[in-house]
């Protein structure tokens, strides 16, 4: 491996051999420190109630219980709201959703802590809950003010348009279902310091919020994260409350405390993808070109703001997807309900925005009886005109037309469209559907200041390298990609680069690993750190070889110049003896981006990532059940740093997006209790839901126009939205039960139930005229 530059190669995940051997250590697997206590939360049984009293005497009386605490016992700020206050660690006088944390118990085992927690006596005054988006809109119940983004005169364009449609789609939320539930272990140190091992995408925020809750300075808290068993956005802000509870109990008892949520509690009390209701009114011409459009996006935020401002913003930013919307108005309602506070989830509002516009384009096509792909293509952003987004950003890197054309051709869209038609004509009970949908996704945190990263690189005198940066590893291969970049910089093998756990003690004030930005930001920062050291080492080598530093080459684990060479380790030793620093930080901030939140104009994104998916489904029209028969995906990862890792992100993202829109249904009862809180009732895709014909390719012409590390592109979130193709293929199959075009209202997720009910609606409509004729 030493001889090969490791960038661009399909190197296996750095932990792969540990994963398969069961040797990769997650927080719950760590050696337990002596005296460890286990935390358990007391949860609200009501969706909305005033807490009149909490009596924990029976809890504390139970043998094995060491401590219990409520809001009153928090020395600092009892809140882990990431952007706005409003997420109490322990409910203080008021519970606002079923499952909200009210108190915590620390005991010598989790079973004891659970049993003790059930002995608390709490009295309530029950208040009426607001449970649905409808109820929130009616009550004008919002977590944040309503926002509007506009360009041109949408009302005038609608009034003048020759054709007009309006409608609505409800889109369900989504549980992250990371396989490793939320977990943290807090270990008190001297001077009241606290070390927190947290399964978090945002160690810095855990550090800061724990410090605030414990009434400590930031420097007294260290948060460390080696790896997560999946994150998907669910461990961005949601990890803080878990970590804070552990740290508070550790501070109170002076003993280490582990806090691990079991699956049911995890699903009940931590946030999910925002569900939403999208209303639209669109004007278009006879060719299906959109002339004017108004969207009302009612976003279900739950009881607190959490990250909903930025999430709802991103839904607005992606209300266009890949389509030029000339006269447009997007109104965003951030609805407050007495349900769990919804949070970041892969795509971060973008998927919801995209589902809205894809629905509109599909409806236009079906109304006009034109193949939906044709209408999609007619509305694509142009390269020189029709290339400015509703928020005033010029789309400079548009490749959606050529990418779509390539997929359309290579996946045989036209011939398969005919085949589906023939099949449907012959088969009365099983119907097939086909859909090709595009993705254009903006890359950068829309909150501009978050687009920064730091790294710390050490070269030791044996030539081995230690790498640390602010990014976290949740399975996406970030650690590996950054290590590949650093190894390439030094011209050494990957085995010479030690990847070390993310810790706030090494790189401070970091941004979350989110917004697909992990590699773009941390890769650049690490590259800059490595370059700084390399430059110093090159100067040492230049002196040794008596050549100009610019002619020194680092490759194959050796350093050469002027016909001489030495091992990378030898040079490190020489540099050390020459009193040259072999350690450096690196710091990167994304250029070019700015955004005015008042005018809703600017360049919030450094660039866009593109992709497209073609899905073919088969529906049992007697039960509504369906199978995905085949999927073809072409996705733009720029110049891929690691094609195997990128393919993994694309395939996994697609399947997760498909799950969101098909079988993953969050179901609350009329009291606001989530009744799908374990995999027995909440159904993420299983192995058999993925077709054998799962053809995924990287867009070969892909190359980031912007100066992103090695011209790669972010690939974490964009592929999730490729799953929208499955939803539209289902719509296509449903249409085949009627006139081939019309689809009755189909909300997401398109469960077998929703699919069957849509088909039944069509069949009932078809039966009506016949019934009349028979009379």
């Amino acid at each position, binding site marked *: 491996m030493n001889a090969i530059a490791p960038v661009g190669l399909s190197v296996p995940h750095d932990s792969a051999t540990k994963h398969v051997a069961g040797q990769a250590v997650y927080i719950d697997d760590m050696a337990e420190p002596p005296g460890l206590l286990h935390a358990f939360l007391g949860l609200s049984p009501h969706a909305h109630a005033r807490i009149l009293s909490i009596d924990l005497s029976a809890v504390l009386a139970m043998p094995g219980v060491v401590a219990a605490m409520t809001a009153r016992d928090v020395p600092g700020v009892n809140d882990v709201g990431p952007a706005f206050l409003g997420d109490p660690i322990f409910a203080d006088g008021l519970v606002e959703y079923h499952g909200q944390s009210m108190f915590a118990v620390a005991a010598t085992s989790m079973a004891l802590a659970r049993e003790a927690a059930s002995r608390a006596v709490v009295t309530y005054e029950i208040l009426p809950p607001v449970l649905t988006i409808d109820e929130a809109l009616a009550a004008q119940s919002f977590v944040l003010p309503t926002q509007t983004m506009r360009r041109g005169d949408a009302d005038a364009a609608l009034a003048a348009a020759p054709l007009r449609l309006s409608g609505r789609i409800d889109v369900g939320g989504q549980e992250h279902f990371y396989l490793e539930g939320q977990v943290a272990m807090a270990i008190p140190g001297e001077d009241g310091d606290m070390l927190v091992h947290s399964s978090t995408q945002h160690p810095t925020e855990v550090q800061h919020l724990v410090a605030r809750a414990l009434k400590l300075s930031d420097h007294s808290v260290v948060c460390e994260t080696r790896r997560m068993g999946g994150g998907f956005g669910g461990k961005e802000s949601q990890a803080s409350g878990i970590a804070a509870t552990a740290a508070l109990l550790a501070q109170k008892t002076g003993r280490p405390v582990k806090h691990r949520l079991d699956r049911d509690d995890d699903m009940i009390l931590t946030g999910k993808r925002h569900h939403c209701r999208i209303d639209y009114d669109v004007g278009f011409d006879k060719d299906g070109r959109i002339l004017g459009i108004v969207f009302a996006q009612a976003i279900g935020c739950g009881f607190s703001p959490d990250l909903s401002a930025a999430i709802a913003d991103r839904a607005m930013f992606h209300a266009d997807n890949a389509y030029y919307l000339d006269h447009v108005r997007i109104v965003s309602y951030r609805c407050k309900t007495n349900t769990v506070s919804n949070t970041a989830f892969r795509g971060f509002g973008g998927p919801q925005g995209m589902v809205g516009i894809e629905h509109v384009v599909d409806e236009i096509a079906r109304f006009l009886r034109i193949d939906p792909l044709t209408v999609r293509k007619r509305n694509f952003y142009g390269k020189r005109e029709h290339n400015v987004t509703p928020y005033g950003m010029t789309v400079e890197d548009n490749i959606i037309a050529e990418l779509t054309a390539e997929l359309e051709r290579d996946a045989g869209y036209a011939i398969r469209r005919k085949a589906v038609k023939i099949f449907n004509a012959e088969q009365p009970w099983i119907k097939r559907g086909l859909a090709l949908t595009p993705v254009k996704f903006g890359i950068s945190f829309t909150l501009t200041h978050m687009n920064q990263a730091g790294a710390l690189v050490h070269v030791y005198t044996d030539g081995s390298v230690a790498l640390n940066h602010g990014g976290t590893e949740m399975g996406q291969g970030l650690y590996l990609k950054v290590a590949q970049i650093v190894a390439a910089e030094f011209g050494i093998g990957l085995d010479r680069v030690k990847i070390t756990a993310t810790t706030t003690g090494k790189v401070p004030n970091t941004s979350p690993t989110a917004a697909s930005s992990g590699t773009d930001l941390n890769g650049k920062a690490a590259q800059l750190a490595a370059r700084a050291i390399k430059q110093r080492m090159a100067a040492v080598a230049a002196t040794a070889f008596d050549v100009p530093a610019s002619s020194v080459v680092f490759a194959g684990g050796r350093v050469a110049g002027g016909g001489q060479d030495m091992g990378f380790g030898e040079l490190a030793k020489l540099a050390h003896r020459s009193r040259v620093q072999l350690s450096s930080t690196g710091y990167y901030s994304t250029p070019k981006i700015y955004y005015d939140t008042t005018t809703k104009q600017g360049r919030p994104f450094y660039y866009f990532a593109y992709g497209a998916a073609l899905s073919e489904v088969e529906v049992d029209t007697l039960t509504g059940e369906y*199978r995905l028969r085949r999927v073809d995906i072409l996705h733009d990862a720029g110049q891929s740093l690691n094609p195997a890792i990128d393919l993994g992100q694309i395939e996994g993202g697609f399947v997760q997006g498909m799950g969101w829109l098909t079988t993953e249904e969050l179901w609350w009862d009329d009291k606001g209790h989530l009744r799908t809180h374990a995999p027995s009732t909440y159904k993420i895709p299983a192995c058999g839901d993925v077709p054998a014909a799962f053809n995924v390719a990287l867009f070969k012409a892909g190359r980031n126009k912007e100066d992103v590390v090695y011209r790669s592109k972010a690939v974490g979130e964009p592929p999730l939205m490729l799953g929208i193709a499955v939803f539209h293929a289902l719509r296509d199959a449903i249409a085949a039960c009627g006139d081939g075009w019309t689809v009755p209202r189909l909300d997401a997720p398109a469960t077998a139930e929703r699919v069957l009910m849509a088909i039944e609606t069509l069949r009932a409509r078809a039966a009506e005229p016949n019934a009349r004729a028979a009379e």
Partner: protein
Amino acid sequence: MRDTLHFRLGPEPRTLRHVDPTMTVLEYLRGAERLCGTKEGCAEGDCGACTVVLVDRQGHHRAVNACVLFMPALDGQQLLTVEHLAAADGTPHPVQQAMVDYHASQCGFCTPGFVMSLYALHTGVKPDRTAVNEALAGNLCRCTGYRPIVDAALAVCTGDAPPPPPDAVPATDGMLALAHNGRQSFSPRSSGELARVLLDHPQATIVAGGTDAGLWVTKQHKTLPVTVFLDSVGDMADVQLAGGVIQIGARATYQDALPVLEAHFPDFGTTIRRIGSRQIRNRGTIGGNIANASPIGDTPPALLALDAALVLRRGDTRRTVKLDDFYASYRKTVLKPSEFIERIDIPVGADGMLFRCYKVSKRFDQDISAVCAAFRLRLQDGIVRDIRIGFGGMAATPVRAHTMEAALTGRPWTEATVRMGQAAMDEAFSPLSDMRASAAYRRVVARNLLLKCFLETSGKAAATRLVPA
């Protein structure tokens, strides 16, 4: 009576005393043994992160969920975890290497479970894609989208893996009887011993596979003071055909019963293959599925349609009860204290008998059904001579659709007759709305499944089934 549990953990013999009989194997591995490769993902046997392999005396390798496996089930078995697969020199097992080579792990948390399912698959015949899906249906991965895992499985499971060298499983004698933490368990070795234990302990909870009883402990946090485990009841595990009747011992697992049921009733086989997962079917029993009287059990509708009978036993007294008469009300059966199901008898039926069975759920694999329906009918000259229909998900218990049967019997097997049957059904059932399905959907599906049965048994050529892709 023996109060020590004997098993082998990987290569090492283990003899444990003072074992809490309702401690799960997952708790034991992660706690006492600190073998943390086996993960807790859901504690209900639905995600597979805790998959381990049990090897019995015959050398059969079975993937099971450690999270709902109680300790007494280990008695006389070998337990293999992800830590036990590598060679002595540390060389990864071929299934582990394949998972690395195919980039089949991302976050890695589900990976040990997949590795163990693949290890069990690896010891058998070469699987095709369908067989891989079936073997992995009980392992959820949220990162990869499964494609690389399936590729790894197809590449490494070549069907010619040498059987792993059997480690002698410790010999056991005497009935295992554990008592710890105020909890007591018995593992009788014959149906006679079982009958006697139950006479002595009429309030005992019988644990067959534990795939449901496990959840009472891990999810409902109930205490089961006295448990009786069926793992060692050797004479209740047989599945045989005798005089036109399929006799299934009440502790035979789904996997044990599958071949003979599938041979006689292909649709029943298809349904059984969709019950839980391979891990669940390796433990769960048809006897348990009947006895727990869930309204949404997947085998009772088929067994009702097939006119199954149960041999119930109390002490040395046996009685035979038709499954029709077994359910008293929601979660209640006619079983008396100390009485247990010893055997399930399913008549193979006369020649020309038609059987169709359908399971409808949100997800195809490893899901609990919204509606399950089974039809057994005999046609003569296009006339319905007799028909038995069983439904799950339509009432508080699995039920026969008597009114529908009456509406159809003696009539020509035509679409018009089907419509009459559908109308009769609408009146007969008032299903529930819950997180799995609305009452309205259940009604429509139930109606449509009758139509589907008609389409499939009246010589229509059109496709009525989805083809797994």
